[in-house]
């Protein structure tokens, strides 16, 4: 009994033992297999992960490259600065209690774990006064070292605490509402959720905040000693971007100003402070957005290695202008320190500072021109002598919005590119609406390259060159300049002098006009004729050859490329359009840079060099193969416009008949052309509650142009200058004196 002979293992007990043993064996095998999987299969991954925890990695900051002007003056640079960061619980003062608790626990270890949490307070109290005193001493040290009054620091603490608490309450209440809604959605019996349930500490309540910002290296050195002493204090490098020449003071000599202006403001030199010098060109910095991080990810997708220039939270990115366009060049790469926590070895990779970028702009010239265009100077505000047959362009004293470009003819470099109004970068924080929501003045637009203007008469020299080069017109063929172009259409394509004074140029000259005559007096009939000869296709093509319709790609942001021959309505071009385009009206729109560019090309005899803003950019030249004589005659016409008695750019006639020459700078030769271009008004359409729409005209009138070539006396022209004054009426009256002062500025800055 007790065992069965027929079974293989005779004893039942042993069979049962084997069953148990078998179960244990199965477990062992499972454990062994899994252990083998971890230790062999996944070994490399786990070892890498474990070793990763042996290292701490820290990025070290780098400096952003500087932006320099053509003479190496610093326009934008990183200024090393530091923030004093203090942990949030030290800011609120809670640190005193938690530290006291920590000390109590350390000193009474056994007792501590045995009593309940709410009874530990008695143990903590004795340490509390000590920790509070230490905390107070810390704040005093910080105040003293960073040279900030203790009251200011406390005020800043309160402000941080208030902000964070506000944020926390908003977040928690939001969570509470969401949690309640989620839990009670389908219930009859509501589940009570209290604020306690959702009040997990925010990240902001567990991280340090900047109590003092922007301290320099010297002070940072002292604060560092405090940071070593108190673990809740740390220094954070926060290089800030400084624009040392954002605000400049220029001394303007008024001796060459129009006499009535001199009477008004006095003869003495005036010191003008200009805000926002070259702001449109240089740009500014903004905070990081998701697109920036995605555009330059941490792991370079091409090489698969870490991109040390990648964006980390808190970084600033260039926005607008050179800061944005040259972001990759300026940015630089961070350094890297890997510390082995067990051996304390460090592997240091040095940061690579960003590259500097040099512009062709002369900042002092730029500031000077901006000063000239500032309202205080008086040149760019509505003055009594600006009155024309249409009256004053705007109420007296209204500032004009203006733009001016100065090009260096031999190289195509842009010496100055001004758009007024401009603004200081601080205004971006303090009052952005005044910049971005002003529909008339649009301060944020760089008028020199982004705003379309009807050119008007200033295009006439290039139309001449175009027509002659095409062989459609001969310079020795004069054109009869009557009152209107087509005898059977007296109300179309009229001569401006006929419209205004009832006479014709033919009458004035006593003969038909040659090209230089027509340029001198800006005869419309002559150029209507040329436009007609060229026809819509060719005239559009010639505009394009001179650069209209192709963006310059200067690299500082949005550009208006120009429009030659594309109509709003989408219709094809008719002959009438070509006729209008002959005098710079109709479907043609350009920027002040285009205007300067046209004249520079003419000055070079037909060599077009695309204007550049960066010194390192190589010049790109094309030969337009203009008929040389047409160019010469064109320039002669420009000369006569400024010199001849009937030249539209020679003088201003003041009320009372007094004539004063526009150009009075000694030692220079000036040739140029006025333009009074019909422009579309700026209107505001308002719809009231009843559905009635009213249209208000905010600005209207003609744009006032003056484009000129200037060189040292007796020498070839060296610089092309274009000036446009919006809705100002007469080119000669308004833009002329401004152009004159720009020439004077070039002399003052040593260019002429």
């Amino acid at each position: 009994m007790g065992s069965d002979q027929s079974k293989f293992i005779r004893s039942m007990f042993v069979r049962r033992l084997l069953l148990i043993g078998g179960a244990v064996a199965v477990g062992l095998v499972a454990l062994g297999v899994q252990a083998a999987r971890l230790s062999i299969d996944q070994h490399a991954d786990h070892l890498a992960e474990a070793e990763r925890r042996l290292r701490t990695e820290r990025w070290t900051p780098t400096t952003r490259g500087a932006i320099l002007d053509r003479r190496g003056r610093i326009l934008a640079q990183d200024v090393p600065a530091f923030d004093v960061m203090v942990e949030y619980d030290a800011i609120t003062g809670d640190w005193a209690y938690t530290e006291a608790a920590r000390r109590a626990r350390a000193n009474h270890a056994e007792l501590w774990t045995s009593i309940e949490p709410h009874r530990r307070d008695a143990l903590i109290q004795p340490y509390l006064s000590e920790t509070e005193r230490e905390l107070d001493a810390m704040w005093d040290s910080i105040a003293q070292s960073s040279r900030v009054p203790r009251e200011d620091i406390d005020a800043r603490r309160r402000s941080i605490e208030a902000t964070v608490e506000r944020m926390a309450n908003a977040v928690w209440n939001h969570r509470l509402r969401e949690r309640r809604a989620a839990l009670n959605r389908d219930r009859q019996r509501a589940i009570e959720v209290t604020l306690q349930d959702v009040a997990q500490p925010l990240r902001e309540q567990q991280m340090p905040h900047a109590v003092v910002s922007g301290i320099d290296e010297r002070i940072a050195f002292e604060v560092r000693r405090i940071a070593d002493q108190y673990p809740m204090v740390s220094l954070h490098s926060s290089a800030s971007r400084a624009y040392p020449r954002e605000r400049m003071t220029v001394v303007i000599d008024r001796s060459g100003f129009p006499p009535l202006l001199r009477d008004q403001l006095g003869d003495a030199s005036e010191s003008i402070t200009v805000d926002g010098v070259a702001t449109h060109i240089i740009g500014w910095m903004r905070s990081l957005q998701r697109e920036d991080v995605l555009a330059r990810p941490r792991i370079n997708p091409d090489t698969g290695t870490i991109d040390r220039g990648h964006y980390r939270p808190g970084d600033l990115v260039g926005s607008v202008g050179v800061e944005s366009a040259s972001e990759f060049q300026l940015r630089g790469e961070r350094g890297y320190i890997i510390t082995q926590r067990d051996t304390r070895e460090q592997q240091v990779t040095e940061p690579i500072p960003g590259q500097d970028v040099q512009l062709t702009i002369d900042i002092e010239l730029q500031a000077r021109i901006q000063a000239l265009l500032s309202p205080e100077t008086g040149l760019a505000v509505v003055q009594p002598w600006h009155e024309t047959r249409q009256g004053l362009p705007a109420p007296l004293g209204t500032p004009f919005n203006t733009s001016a470009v100065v090009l260096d003819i031999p190289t195509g470099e842009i010496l100055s590119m001004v758009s007024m109004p401009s603004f200081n970068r601080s205004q971006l924080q303090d009052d952005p609406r005044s910049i971005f929501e002003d529909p008339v003045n649009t301060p944020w637009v760089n008028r020199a390259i982004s705003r379309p203007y009807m050119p008007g008469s200033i295009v006439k020299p290039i139309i001449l060159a175009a027509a002659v080069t095409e062989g459609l017109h001969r310079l020795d063929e004069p054109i009869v300049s009557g009152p209107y172009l087509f005898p059977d259409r007296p109300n179309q394509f009229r001569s401006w002098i006929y419209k205004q004074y009832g006479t014709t140029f033919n009458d004035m000259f006593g003969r038909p006009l040659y090209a230089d005559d027509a340029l001198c007096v800006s005869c419309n009939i002559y150029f209507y004729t040329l436009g007609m000869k060229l026809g819509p296709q060719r005239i559009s093509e010639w505009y394009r050859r001179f650069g209209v319709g192709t963006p310059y790609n200067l690299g500082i942001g949005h550009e208006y490329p120009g429009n030659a021959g594309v109509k709003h309505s989408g219709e094809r071009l008719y002959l009438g359009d070509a006729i209008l385009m002959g005098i710079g009206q109709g479907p043609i729109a350009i920027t002040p840079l285009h205007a300067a560019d046209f004249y520079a090309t003419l000055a070079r005899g037909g060599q077009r060099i695309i204007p550049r803003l960066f010194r390192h950019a190589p010049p790109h030249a094309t030969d337009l193969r203009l008929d040389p004589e047409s160019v010469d005659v064109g320039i002669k016409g420009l000369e006569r416009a400024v010199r001849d008695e009937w030249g539209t750019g020679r003088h201003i006639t003041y009320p009372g008949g007094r004539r004063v020459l526009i150009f009075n700078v000694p030692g220079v030769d000036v040739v140029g052309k006025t333009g009074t271009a019909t422009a579309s008004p700026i209107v505001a359409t308002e719809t009231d509650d009843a559905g009635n729409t009213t249209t208000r005209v905010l600005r209207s009138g003609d744009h006032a142009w003056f484009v000129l070539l200037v060189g040292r006396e007796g020498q070839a022209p060296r610089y092309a200058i274009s000036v446009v004054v919006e809705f100002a009426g007469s080119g000669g009256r308004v833009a002329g004196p401004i152009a004159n002062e720009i020439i004077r500025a070039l002399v003052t800055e040593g260019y002429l």
Partner: protein
Amino acid sequence: MNPRQISDLVTLHQRTSGRFDLENETRARAVTRSSIVWWQPGWLVMLSTIMLCLVGVYCINITSGLGTGEWTRTALRQGIFAVIGIIGAALVVVPHYRRMIHFSWPLAALMIALLIFLLIPFIPESIVRPRNGGARRWINIGITEFQPSELAKIAFVLVMASYLRFRRNHRSIRGLFLPSLIAFVPMALILVQPDLGTAVLFMPALVAMLIAAGAKLRHLFSALGLGAVFAIVVVVLSLFFAQQNEYPLLRPHQVDRIAALIDQFEGDERHIQDRGFQGKQAITLVGAGGIAGHPEPYARALIVFSGLPERHNDMIFAVFANRFGLIGIMVLLVLYAAWVGGALWVAAMCRDPFGRLVCVGLAAMVATQAGVNVGMTIGLLPITGMTLPFVSYGGTSLVAGFLMAGLILNIALRRPAYLSRKSFEFDDDAE
């Protein structure tokens, strides 16, 4: 037959009828005391225990940090407890194990009393100090603290073996009821402390002892099956409710651990910094050990900077695996296999029902505890509070472990009575 054999038979007959007869008892003692078996698998068990204990002391030492060259206080304490344990084992080996049958019920009653004592709320905290957020598991006896639940495990095995040794009624379903009740009482008391890990160990011991004692397998498996279904339902419901932040069945940290294991299987790393941290770091350290482990300084660094919690107790296996690699793991598993296998072998060789069941019960406890601890460290099971027997830091559990080894050695040393019948052979009944 000679007179001696006759008297043996008589003695045995009297013994199997369960009555206590002093005269026969004395004679039986005379029969049995004279023979000691020196060459038996009990030494395997003791040797494994000592070696595992030494491994434990070493591993506890290297959890202390980058190392100062000195043995840490914790490791030294463990060493002292090892010495106490060996002394205790020596004491346990001396009397014949059958004596313990008489002590098993009083011992169990004492243990129950201590367990109840732990739970009484107005006991001053100088005697029962709650730790880890209110767990009441230790009694302070001045120089150290001891954990009654560890000794309660041994007492339970003794009691259960004593109860089952001459019975047959556990072969019916109704007969399973009382053994389960005997298990249930201490389980419940330990569960309330709370100490889920230790409480759960009673189940495998009970089941293994019932299997070995001849309970019908289909009864047991259906009971286990029901239990498993119940457990799965509880787990699934708990996970479901946890998504809405309710915890009607299991407690939050328990549901968290199950969820963390599921995360691990799915490769979901969202909660790796809170609930998944311990599991992930354990697996990382084990995997980083590779085939041969790392030299001590490097292993220390990896362990310290991994941030692994409970390094010296629950997670000691990860420390060991990192230091000694897969080879070390295999050796460790072999040591446990030797312990369990040795205990089962002793059970096979022993004829006495009490001895057999004690060996089986203790083997089942050790196997389960080691298996669950290693399993949770390498990511097959959710993290529990179970320590690695003989290796993890813990004075009472180490001493209890040595006592277990001592008991098994005791059983192994005794030559079975001549012509004694093997027990638990129920082949005349249908399986």
